[in-house]
């Protein structure tokens, strides 16, 4: 039960990562392979602000979010836009960016794992279960951000335009929505969310420069579970993954825990080549 709850808590952080990945895929039709690195950079940003500069967490998290936002804007403007959305060159640029960012963090911070002091080191007792309050806060922040994103997409003009562009690019273009602005928005929002996810994760687990790979894998699994570009699907996919992550290690050891999610996703692709909620 304990690890089940922990797994679900991590599931919410993965959802943050996958939301960004899905948003970018939906709007720009590209697979952002450097997304895991944005997450990793977010974690290191928090480490930098909190440990090296001694800022409190409440200041560091918004700064971390801003870092992700700016990074997303730079990536879209200078790396993805000039390519015009072609499949292969865009993937290659994303991979190149991924290698460069990883190496830059290695140069800046070294390869040894770094740890951020937990922002809430106490555990609380709920219904006889000991839960780390840092995890509870991480879940609360994730849910708040997801609600904020939901509100942004459904209630604001920009968000509605973004949804429209993700649903049908050409039709939204005819309605006077500028696709370039939408790509910029999607990258900014998606990267900010990934960055916060990194910041939250960094205070639970130690950070290292290759942590982005795992995050990318989890994000890919979730968006395939939920169907590429479908945000409610991401929510479902993330909870399924969190559930598996929580339950499988207890029931049948680490081997199954590592392989089971991948296996389930491949099974879903076998049965529905376009994902669970996807439509082609």
């Amino acid at each position, binding site marked *: 039960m304990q690890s089940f709850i922990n797994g679900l808590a991590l599931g919410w952080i993965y959802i943050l990562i996958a939301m960004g990945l899905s948003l970018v895929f939906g709007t720009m039709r590209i697979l952002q392979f450097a997304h895991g690195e944005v997450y990793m950079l977010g974690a290191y940003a928090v480490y930098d602000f909190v440990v090296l500069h001694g800022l409190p967490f409440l200041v560091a998290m918004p700064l971390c979010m801003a870092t992700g936002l700016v990074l997303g804007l730079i990536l879209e403007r200078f790396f993805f836009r*000039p390519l015009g959305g072609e499949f292969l060159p865009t993937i290659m*640029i994303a991979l190149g960016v991924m290698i460069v960012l990883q*190496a830059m963090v290695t140069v800046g911070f070294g390869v040894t794992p770094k740890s951020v002091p937990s922002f809430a080191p106490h555990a609380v007792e709920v219904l006889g279960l000991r839960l780390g309050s840092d995890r509870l806060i991480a879940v609360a922040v994730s849910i708040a951000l997801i609600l904020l994103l939901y509100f942004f997409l459904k209630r604001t003009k920009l968000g509605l335009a973004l949804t429209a562009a993700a649903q049908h690019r050409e039709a939204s273009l005819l309605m006077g929505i500028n696709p370039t602005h939408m790509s910029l928005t999607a990258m900014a929002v998606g990267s900010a969310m990934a960055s916060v996810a990194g910041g939250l994760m960094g205070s639970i687990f130690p950070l290292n420069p290759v942590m982005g790979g795992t995050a990318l894998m989890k994000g890919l699994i979730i968006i395939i579970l939920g169907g590429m570009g479908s945000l409610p699907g991401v929510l479902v996919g993330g909870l399924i993954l969190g559930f598996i992550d929580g339950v499988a290690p207890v029931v049948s050891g680490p081997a199954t825990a590592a*392989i089971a999610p991948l296996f389930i996703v491949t099974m879903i*692709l076998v049965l529905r080549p376009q994902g669970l909620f996807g439509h082609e």
Partner: protein
Amino acid sequence: MSKGRPNTWAKRSALAILIVLLFCVPAVLQNDYWLFVFCLAWINVLMASSLRTIYRTGELSLGQVGFMLLGAYSSALLSKGLGMPVWLTILVGGLFAAAVALLLSYPILRTKGVYFSVFTFLVAEIFRLAMWYTPGLSGGPAGLSKIPPPGAINLLGITLITFTTKSSYYCLLAVVVLLSLLVLFRVERSLGFTWMAIRQNDDLAESVGINVRGHKLVAFVVGCFFAGIAGGLFAHFMHLLTTDATAMFGMLTSIYVAIYMVAGGEARMAGPIVGAVVLTLAPEVARPLKEYQPIVFGALVIFIMFFMRQGIIALPFYLRLWWDRTLGGAGKAP
């Protein structure tokens, strides 16, 4: 192209000279480290070319390393455990990778585009994790060590060639990879045009009577076969295999292989070869930069994608283009 194409004989003799020069590399180099790098370059050449065979039908596989792993482990285990000759086990490793590819081809080939890339990516990771968690086969975190080198061959009773040293293994690699490239070349010669039709528009290709699924299957299985061969070559060259996430069989290798192919230029057979050689050797030249080295690699990839979309292979074309634009254009102006 007013000067006309160079005639085929000149091309062929240039190729022959190049191949002879390649076999002289160990004699000239006399440096174990660089020889190691060259051996890796050969393996990368085979990986990138096998990936290109699949990509000719329009699907980008990001799971080549998974099939490489299958070939490497089956070859290593058969030669180490059962004492089978290495010649045979490398081939069996390739066949095993191809057989698994054949079994998996039905679900994998039902997916297209991004889904295909992600599917193969995940399959490779499943293979790696499955090996990692079966210490009986993979040796667990310590890895599988003491993989035997190929046995000596007796050349007409005159000389005995052993493969214990790096330089002789280099020659073996060169021979096997060149033969494999020849096979890939012949396969593409006979099926390449059909593959191009499938790649440009698979629905249209199907409507004119092309068996799209069958052709994709052939390309996929052939590509995976040679990835398996590359794995076998790698196993008997390194004598040590690990399934650590950051080692050879991690997902980064698939990504690197895709980069070799695209950066070299996937439109032509020579593209992945040039890409693999240049991008394996260039970071080694940058080795004095230590931890800045991957930045050089990544920046190189980004540069190539921005300014030379057709890949390194099209460098002469781009040079001419830039020349015409800058100096040539200025000269013509009145």
